[in-house]
């Protein structure tokens, strides 16, 4: 009998196969996504939040494939992976629901829906694997359909070039990451296990921990590898074009879910296994994340197309997650994980709504869209308003709770009478990003939906097929925003054990 987590990972794959063999694509994909959302919620419900110490992962399943080195198709959740799993099932449902009807897809509708399902399966596999090998492999599995989809179903005349860029860029990033992971594997113990839990125990045992100098270069490899995947400055230039040119569900899934893999890896693997390395490169990461927040924040202001602007803003917001990661500590890490969720949902929402706009008006260039569209498509305008304010961290949305925690996290280690350290300075400078993101979001909202109506087109307002996924995402954001405890309770046991915070 497969465990609930195994079903979560393999159900989308089975659904993809079924579509391949002739099942109705949209119906099957949405059905599988709904079932997966249900399983995800049940799994969350059965997670014991009151556990103290002891078992690190829960709901574990393991199928040993190789004894030495120990390799197993093993799944399990702790608070962090549980939250990312929930993010994945929510965004997946929204993404397949927001996908166009089969008749509107140019090319094979089957492949379109199959790709989305495979990305979901890959992401779930990566987040739920407790085995380093599969953690990596599942992520690669998710990347392939991403590349294909941009090339085959993307928008714009440059989509082939964009697809190539992201393929090579992320391919190289993955290779660097692979090198780092292999180095890690080789240096921890006697290269005899891929089990993340065991590796962490060894890395934190003073007898078996990796020497500092070694930690340092391995961490750098992981930082660059994971960093490329998360679009850490200056390794970000694949992102805006890819998101702008990708079909809507792919932008939603990649920016919303898959991109979090890099951050997940840094917190899950690099942080606990290489604490000295993390310490050593802390200031570098702080400088780079300021690049994300301030430099790329300003670059976002200069964008003239909504899709590129949203893509760039997504890159910018990664800086805050990095800030939480660097701050470490209970508050910072909690904030970082919460922001991964919040950002994932809100960016998916923005891309979904941008897709609805593109479908109606043909273009997403601010100048071509004209203004005053709020009069024409009021529902779209209202939902976009929700999305815009969620994304700039308005209280009531999950994003705010997460960002506040990250800032408190950055000040958590500060002593009452100490001067400000670089970490706190970086947090203060990053806070200015809150102003920057309000500038570009409100400008875009103003330009598109407000002011006098100029266009002569009269499209219909949002259909239910567009509204349902948007509302699903908004409700998720507001639930967590009003009551962050709903997710934070899962994190507490993980924060107490060694999986998230170094000893």
């Amino acid at each position, binding site marked *: 009998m497969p465990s609930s987590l195994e079903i979560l990972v393999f159900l989308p794959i089975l659904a993809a196969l079924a579509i391949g063999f002739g099942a109705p694509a949209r119906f099957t994909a949405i059905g599988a996504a709904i079932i997966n959302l249900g399983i995800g919620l049940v799994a969350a419900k059965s997670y014991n939040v009151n556990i103290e110490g002891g078992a690190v992962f829960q709901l574990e399943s393991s199928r040993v494939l*190789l004894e030495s080195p120990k*390799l197993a198709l093993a799944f399990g959740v702790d608070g962090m992976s549980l939250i990312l799993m929930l993010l994945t099932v929510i965004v997946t449902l929204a993404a397949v629901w927001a996908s166009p009807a089969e008749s509107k897809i140019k090319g094979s509708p089957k492949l379109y829906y199959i790709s989305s399902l495979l990305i979901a399966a890959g992401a779930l596999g990566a987040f739920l694997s407790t085995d380093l090998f599969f953690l990596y*492999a599942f992520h*690669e*599995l998710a990347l*392939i359909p991403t590349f*294909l989809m941009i*090339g*085959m179903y993307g928008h714009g005349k440059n989509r082939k070039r964009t697809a*190539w*860029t992201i*393929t090579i*860029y992320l391919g190289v990033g993955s290779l660097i990451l692979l090198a780092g992971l292999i180095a890690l594997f080789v240096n921890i113990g006697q290269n005899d296990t891929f089990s993340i839990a065991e590796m962490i125990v060894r890395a934190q045992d003073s007898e078996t921990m990796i020497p500092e100098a070694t930690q340092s270069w391995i961490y750098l490899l992981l930082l660059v590898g994971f960093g490329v995947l998360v679009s850490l400055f*200056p*390794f970000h*230039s*694949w992102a805006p074009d890819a998101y702008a040119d990708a079909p809507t569900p792919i932008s939603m899934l990649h920016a919303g879910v898959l991109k979090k893999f890099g951050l997940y890896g840094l917190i899950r693997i690099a942080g606990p296994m290489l604490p000295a390395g993390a310490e050593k490169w802390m200031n570098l990461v702080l400088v780079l994340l300021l690049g994300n927040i301030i*430099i*790329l924040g*300003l*670059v*976002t*202001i*200069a*964008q003239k197309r909504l899709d590129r602007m949203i893509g760039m803003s997504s890159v910018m917001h990664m800086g805050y997650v990095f800030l939480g990661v660097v701050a470490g500590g*209970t*508050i910072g890490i*909690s904030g970082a994980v919460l922001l991964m969720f919040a950002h994932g949902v809100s960016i998916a929402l923005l891309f979904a709504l941008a897709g609805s706009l593109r479908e109606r008006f043909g273009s997403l260039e601010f100048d071509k869209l004209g203004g*005053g569209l709020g009069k024409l498509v009021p529902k779209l305008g209202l939902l976009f308003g929700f999305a815009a304010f969620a994304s700039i961290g*308005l*209280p*009531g949305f999950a994003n*705010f*709770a997460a960002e*506040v*925690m990250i*800032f*408190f996290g950055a*000040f*958590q280690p500060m002593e*009452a*009478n100490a*001067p*400000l350290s670089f970490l706190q300075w970086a947090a203060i400078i990053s*806070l*200015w990003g*809150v*102003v920057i993101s*309000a*500038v570009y979001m*409100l400008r875009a909202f*103003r330009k598109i939906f*407000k*002011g*006098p*109506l100029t266009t002569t087109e009269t499209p219909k307002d949002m259909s239910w097929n567009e509204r349902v996924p948007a509302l699903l995402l908004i409700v998720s954001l507001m639930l967590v925003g009003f009551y*962050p*405890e709903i997710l*934070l309770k899962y994190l507490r046991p993980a*924060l107490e054990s060694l999986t998230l915070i170094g000893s």
Partner: protein
Amino acid sequence: MHDVNTLAWIILLLPLLVAASILFGLKKMPGLSALLSTGSVLITLVCSILLFSATGKAVPVTWISIFEFKVNIGLLVGGDKDPLAKGMMFIVTFIGTLVHIFSLGYMKDDDGKARYFAGLSIFMFSMTGIVLADNLVMMFIFWELVGVSSYILIGHWYNKDSAADAAKKAFLTNRIGDFGFMIGILLVWVLTKQIEFAKFTPEIVANAAKSPLFDIAIIAIFCGAIGKSAQVPLHVWLPDAMEGPTPVSALIHAATMVAAGVFMLARVSALIGASELAATVILWTGAITALVAALMALQQNDIKRILAYSTLSQLGYMVMAQGIAGQGADAGMFHLYTHAFFKALLFLGAGAIIFGCHHEQNIWKMGGLRKKMPFTFWTFAIGTAALIAVPGTSGFFSKEGILHAAHAAGHDFPWVIGLIVAFLTPFYMTRLFIVTFLGKSRTENADHAKEVPQIMFVPLVILAVLALFSAYKPIAKFLQAKGYAHAPEIDPTFGWSLFGLIAGVGLAIWIYKGREKERINIPLFANKFYIDEIYNGLIAIFQDAIAGLLDFIDRFVIDPVVARFPAMTAFTAGSFFRLFQVGNLQGYTFLFGAGVVALIWFLLF
């Protein structure tokens, strides 16, 4: 029902419930939406009156809890120790109720009526949240929410460019203030390890004040008030906010939201008291704002803008008071209360005038309205009397309180500034009054002006009564204000401000009585010291130009250097890679996938 917990939670949550149900269900039923919204604010008013005699404590709800780090949504309406929330809550719900009633008439035929009332309800939710907040983070939460409700309401007529721009400007300017506010909250947390107001005990504050960062922390917190209460240099959004419907201006941009900054400072007065530097900064910011705004008001021609600048100026008084040790904070809050009544009255009066004159707002295109709108005339006259501090009116006592406090604390220069403002205010208000109501009608719109419907009278009458008498003991005591009317002391403050009043009114009568157009022309004041132009220039240079430059660098330097050049080098140099360049994407990704599969195969078998 006399239980603080129940009452406070009803006050907080009822408007939210109404707003949500309008937004997601009743949008097509504007009449019902308006009634629901008005009914809900009436209920909160009753609750806030009951709150005065209620006992017990509100039970907080945990919002965030990570081990030792806890943020509650807790409602602070303590017993006698904390009259601040009760008085403020009454003001907010009371003016809120009147403005809702007034809006029933004013927005009767508006297309977006349901949306408008939903916005008002969101505002009521947010504002009561600020008043009830028991800690800094919760205050910040509702602080931001108030900002967004103001954004929604200023931009109510969003198809107008000016309204859409004003809304955006208001939100962004406030965000700049909030940037400082958040830094302040973080630093205070580091220094005191507390965020709850009740925990800022003298010992904890004294201990925190030893740190060199303490002054900076308090000044940073004050930045929040600079934004929300529109103090110089972040005052620029408030005059533009007059693009919103006039009842909104009365409620949000005169009586309540803009006063939130003053309220917040009063809440943290324990902290301000420990930082001399921060108190000085607050004192001077307030004084400068009071003066600069009054000067700008002299040369404005839009009736709402004149009132907006006078609001800025009066807020300056209140903020200045918060920087005065001793009686300052109480005097400032007292002025907040009286100002809320008479300024709401003036704005609603202005709304009636605009409504009656077919949406004319330029005072030079009015004139002679005394006979056409007698009712509005008399209530507006009472509001004006209170604003220019005619002895005996509520405004007189509260303003005297602030000037006295400044004088007593030895802040001579700010005191003099306060007295100059006490001369400028009567001058520009008399100008407004003469040009609008007296003389002959100067345009067709003014000539055809009609008195407004009766539903709009009710709020005007009630507010007029309060503008006159709210400083007298029964009412002031009911509000739990720490100040009330008393026989004037004959001292320099009284003498000079009386002189300012007579001189200001007299000079304005002499210059403007019977005139058809403006006689004096001071471009510097008329153009608001060119501050908007300067800011636009700065934004163009420091934001848009740099953003454009960085965008260029990002596309043509970072991307090539970090990505394309290394990639190209690798691809051209390495014949190894050339083997894999099959030339199409599908092929490449196939190889990519095949690699992974091969790896799994290799490991497994």
